[in-house]
C-alpha cells in the first residue's frame, strides 16, 4: 500500500509537474511571452484536463513538440531519455537544435526515403516488377538524395536523363518503375512525380509534349538474369525536357513539392493549401525545416487546430517492436531465392514495397502500385481497433513492455525491477507517450492499485494496453 506521503512526494517531485509550464513558444524570443511561462506555482492551480497536450493559449506542450518532431522527421517516437532531455533540459533554442539534429540523422533518411519510395513505386514484384537487386540500388539512391539534401531538380534531372543497367545505374529505375513502359507512361510518371498531377488529371498537351522527349528511350534485357538496360536509340532530348520542367515550370515543381511534404506532415488531404511560395526552394530538408519551425507547427491539437495524423503503419510497427523488444520477421517468398530481412532492421527502412505483412496492410501501408499519395491509408477502422484490443501477438508484446529486455540485461538485473509503484507508472508514460502522467491519470492508477490490493503485474499490463489503445498513441497529435 502506498502512503499519502509517498504519493505526495512523487507527484510533487521528479518530473510530473515540472513538464507542463513550458510550452513550444518558450523557444521564441521574449517578445510574445506565453501566459503559461509566468505560472510560478502550478500546484496551486487545478490541473487543466489538457495540460499534457496544450498550454492555455493553445500551443503544443514541450512533450508534444518533442514527440511530434521525432515522428515527423525521424519516423519514430523519442526514447524516454530523448523526451526528457527536450522537456526537462535547457530551453533556449532547443526546437531548432532538435530539428537540425533530426534532419542530419539516419532515421530521417530512412523515414523520408520510405515516403519518396512510395511515390516512385519502389517494389520488386507485380505490377511494377523492379526485381530485388534493382529495388536495393534505387532505394539507396533515393535515401542518398535525402541524406545529402540534394536539390529535387538535380535529382530529377539525374532520373530523367539516366541510361544504363538497372543493377548499377540506380536512376534508370525511374523508367522501369511503372507498369507502362511507353513514352506516354513515362510522361505520366514525370508529371505525377514532379508536378503532382495524377494521370487522370493530366492534360493531353502536356502528356504529348513530355512523351515526345521519351520517344527514343528503349529497354533491353541482357544475359544477366533480370538485368535490363535503359538506353536512348537516336537523339536524346530528355535534357530539354528537364530545362522546361525545372526552368519554365520551376514554380510549379516547387509548389508540388511543398504540397506533398505538407501532406505528409499534416496528413493527406487535410493540409491547408500552402501559402504562396515566396522563395521556391527545391531542397526537401529546407522545405521541412520551414514547416516545422513555423508558428503553425507549434499549435496545440486540442483547441489550437494542429491537425492530428494517424501514425503510419511502418512507424507503428517499429513503435511496438522497440517498446517491447520484439524481433521482426520480414521475408519474401518471391522471387526465389527467398529474402529474409535482418530482425533488427527497422520496418520503416524496408526497401521493398513487396515485402509486407498483414499488420502493415491493415494499417494502410501503400502497395506502391500507382505512386499516388492516396494509396497510403490514414483511416482508423474497426479492424485496426480489433487488432489493438485483442491481438494475441500484440498482447505478447504488451507483456514484454512491462519489462523490456527481460529480468536480466547483460548479466545485470534490469534496473526497472527496482522501480516500484507508482514511479513505475511514470516510467511507462515516459516510454510510451513521451511524457509524465497528469495528476488525474495518476489518480486513476492509484485507485486501480488500491482496488487490486497492490497487485501490480496485471495493473501494469492493463495500463500499457490502455496507453497503446489511446488516441494519443495512435495519432501524431
Amino acid at each position, binding site marked *: 500500500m502506498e502512503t499519502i506521503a509517498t504519493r505526495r512526494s512523487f507527484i510533487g517531485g521528479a518530473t510530473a509537474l515540472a513538464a507542463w509550464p513550458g510550452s513550444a513558444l518558450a523557444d521564441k524570443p521574449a517578445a510574445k511571452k506565453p501566459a503559461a511561462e509566468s505560472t510560478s506555482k502550478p500546484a496551486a492551480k487545478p490541473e487543466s*484536463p*489538457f495540460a499534457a*497536450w496544450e498550454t492555455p493559449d493553445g500551443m503544443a506542450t514541450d512533450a508534444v513538440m518533442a514527440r511530434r518532431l521525432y515522428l515527423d522527421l525521424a519516423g519514430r517516437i523519442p526514447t524516454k531519455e530523448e523526451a526528457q532531455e527536450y522537456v526537462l533540459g535547457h530551453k533556449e533554442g532547443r526546437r531548432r537544435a532538435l530539428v537540425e539534429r533530426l534532419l542530419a540523422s539516419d532515421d530521417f533518411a530512412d523515414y523520408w526515403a520510405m515516403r519518396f519510395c512510395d511515390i516512385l513505386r519502389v517494389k520488386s*514484384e*507485380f*505490377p511494377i516488377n523492379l526485381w530485388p537487386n534493382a529495388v536495393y540500388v534505387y532505394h539507396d539512391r533515393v535515401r542518398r538524395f535525402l541524406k545529402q539534401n540534394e536539390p529535387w531538380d538535380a535529382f530529377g534531372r539525374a532520373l530523367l536523363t539516366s541510361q544504363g543497367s538497372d543493377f548499377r545505374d540506380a536512376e534508370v529505375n525511374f523508367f522501369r518503375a*511503372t*507498369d*507502362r513502359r511507353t513514352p506516354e507512361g513515362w510522361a*505520366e510518371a514525370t508529371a505525377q512525380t514532379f508536378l503532382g498531377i495524377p*494521370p487522370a488529371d493530366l492534360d493531353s498537351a502536356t502528356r504529348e509534349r513530355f512523351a515526345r522527349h521519351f520517344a527514343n528511350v528503349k529497354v533491353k534485357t541482357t544475359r544477366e538474369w533480370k538485368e535490363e538496360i535503359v538506353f536512348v536509340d537516336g537523339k536524346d532530348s530528355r535534357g530539354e525536357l528537364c530545362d522546361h520542367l525545372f526552368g519554365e515550370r520551376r514554380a510549379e515543381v516547387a509548389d508540388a513539392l511543398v504540397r506533398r511534404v505538407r501532406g505528409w506532415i499534416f496528413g493527406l488531404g*487535410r493540409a491547408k493549401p500552402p501559402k504562396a511560395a515566396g522563395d521556391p526552394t527545391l531542397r526537401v530538408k529546407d522545405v521541412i525545416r520551414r514547416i516545422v519551425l513555423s508558428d503553425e507547427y507549434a499549435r496545440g*491539437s*486540442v*483547441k489550437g*487546430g*494542429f*491537425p*492530428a495524423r*494517424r501514425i503510419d503503419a511502418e512507424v507503428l510497427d517499429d513503435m511496438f517492436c522497440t517498446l517491447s523488444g520484439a524481433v521482426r520477421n520480414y521475408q519474401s517468398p518471391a522471387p526465389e531465392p527467398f529474402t529474409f530481412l535482418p530482425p533488427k532492421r527497422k520496418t520503416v527502412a524496408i526497401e521493398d514495397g513487396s515485402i509486407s505483412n*498483414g499488420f502493415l*496492410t491493415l494499417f*494502410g501501408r501503400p*502497395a506502391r*502500385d*500507382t505512386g499516388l499519395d*492516396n494509396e497510403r*491509408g490514414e*483511416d*482508423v*477502422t*474497426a*479492424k*485496426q*481497433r*480489433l*487488432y489493438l*484490443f*485483442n*491481438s*494475441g*501477438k500484440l*498482447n505478447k508484446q504488451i507483456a514484454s513492455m512491462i519489462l523490456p529486455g527481460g529480468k536480466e540485461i547483460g548479466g545485470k538485473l534490469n534496473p526497472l525491477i527496482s522501480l516500484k509503484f507508482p514511479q513505475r507508472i511514470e516510467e511507462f508514460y515516459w516510454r510510451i507517450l513521451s511524457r509524465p502522467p497528469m495528476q*488525474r*491519470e495518476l489518480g*486513476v492508477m492509484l485507485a*486501480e492499485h488500491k482496488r487490486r490490493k497492490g497487485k501490480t503485474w*496485471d495493473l501494469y499490463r*492493463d*495500463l500499457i*494496453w*490502455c*496507453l497503446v*489503445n*489511446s*488516441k*494519443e498513441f*495512435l*495519432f501524431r*497529435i
Partner: protein
Amino acid sequence: MKPAKSVVEIWLWGGPSQLETFDPKPNASRDYNGGLKAIPTNVPGMEIHEWWPELAKCADLYSVIRTMTHKHFGHESAAYLMQTGRMPGGGEVCPAIGAVISQAKKSEYKGDLPPYVILTAAKGRFSEVGFLGADAAPLVTGGQPNSPRFVVDGIVAPAGISHAASNVRFDMLAELDAWRPKEGSANAARAKEFDVAGVEARRIAEGDAAKVFDLSQESEETRNRYGRTNVGQSLLAARRLVEYGVPYVTFNHGGWDSHKRHFETMKKRSAETDQAVAAFLKDLKERGLLDSTIVWMGGEFGRTPKVGWDPPWNGGRNHFASCFSMLVAGGGFKGGCVVGKSDETASKPVERPVSPQDFLCSIYELCGIDPDGPLKNNKGKKLTVLPPQSEAGRLKEIYA
C-alpha cells in the same frame, strides 16, 4: 430468380492441373495423363479424375468448365486477370471480385463481422482491394482452423484475458483516453472516427460474431465429415460464415504450383480437398443454403498437358493458361453440367472457350450486380464493374 446472397471462393493458388481435376484424358498417352484414369460420377456421362472420388458422388451439385482460357502465364498477372477481369497495367490496381461483391452487398448485410472474410491468409503478392483501400479490406483470419482452438487474431480474445478482466480494461481506457479536441474541429472528427471504430470493434469482439469461429460447436461427426485437416476445417468455418450471412468468403488454398514431382503433390492435395469440398457442398445443400450461395473453385491457370519426366522436373507440369478447368456450384448455377470441350490432351479449347471476363461476369450477374454498371468507390474513379464484354460469353447454359 433471386440473386445469390453469398459467394464462397476456393482459390487454388498456383494453378491446379486441369488433367488431374475436371478434364481427365484417360485415352491420351502416359506423357499426358501420367497413366492415370477418369472415374464416372453420379451424373451419367460426366467423368472427373480418379483422385476426386467424393466429388464424383455428388456431381449433381456442381458444374465444371473445361475451357477456361487466357494468355498470362505468370502467377501475378494471371491471378490479377482472373480476380479483376482486367489486364494488368494502366496505372490502376483494380479490386478483386471479393472486394467488389462484398462492397456491393454491404448495405443489405446486417452482421457484425466485415462483409469480406478470408480464411486464413491473404493471397499476398497483389492487393485484393486494389484502389478501394482500407475500408474494403477483408478480415484475414490467420490461425489454424484444425487446431484445438481456432484463434482469429483480434476477434477471439487472447488466452489469459477473461471477459471480466477485459471489461475492467475498457473502463480504465474510457478514463485514460482523454485527448479530446475541440467540438466541430477536424481533429474532433478524427477522434470520433476512432471512437466509432472502437465501438464497432468491441461489438464484434464481444458479440456472437466471435462464436462463428468456434468450430467446437459442431458435432464430431460433422467435423470428421469435412476431414480433420486445415482444408476441411477451413471450409467448415466457411459454411458457418455463410450461415452467419457474410456475403463473400475466400478460402485461399495454396500449394498447387507443382513444377516438380507433380503427381506426388497433386495426389495428396486432391485427397484432402476432395473430401472437404464434397462435404461442404452436401452440407450447404442439406441446410438449404446452396441455392443462395455461389461456390467457385479454381486457380489462376492450369498446367502444361505434357509431363516433364526428366530432372529437374521428375514428373512435373509448368504454368499453362490456354486451357484449364473451374468448378461452380449453387446460387443460381445448375449442377451436373460440363461447359466446353478441350482437345485430346487438354491443350486448347475445341468448343465454347470461356474467358476470365465471361466467368466473372456470370458470378456478378447471379449476385444481382450489373457487370456493366458503375464500380462503386469513394476514390472518384469512373469505372464499370468489368470492362465492356460481349454478353454472349456468359455462362447462361448453366444458369438455373
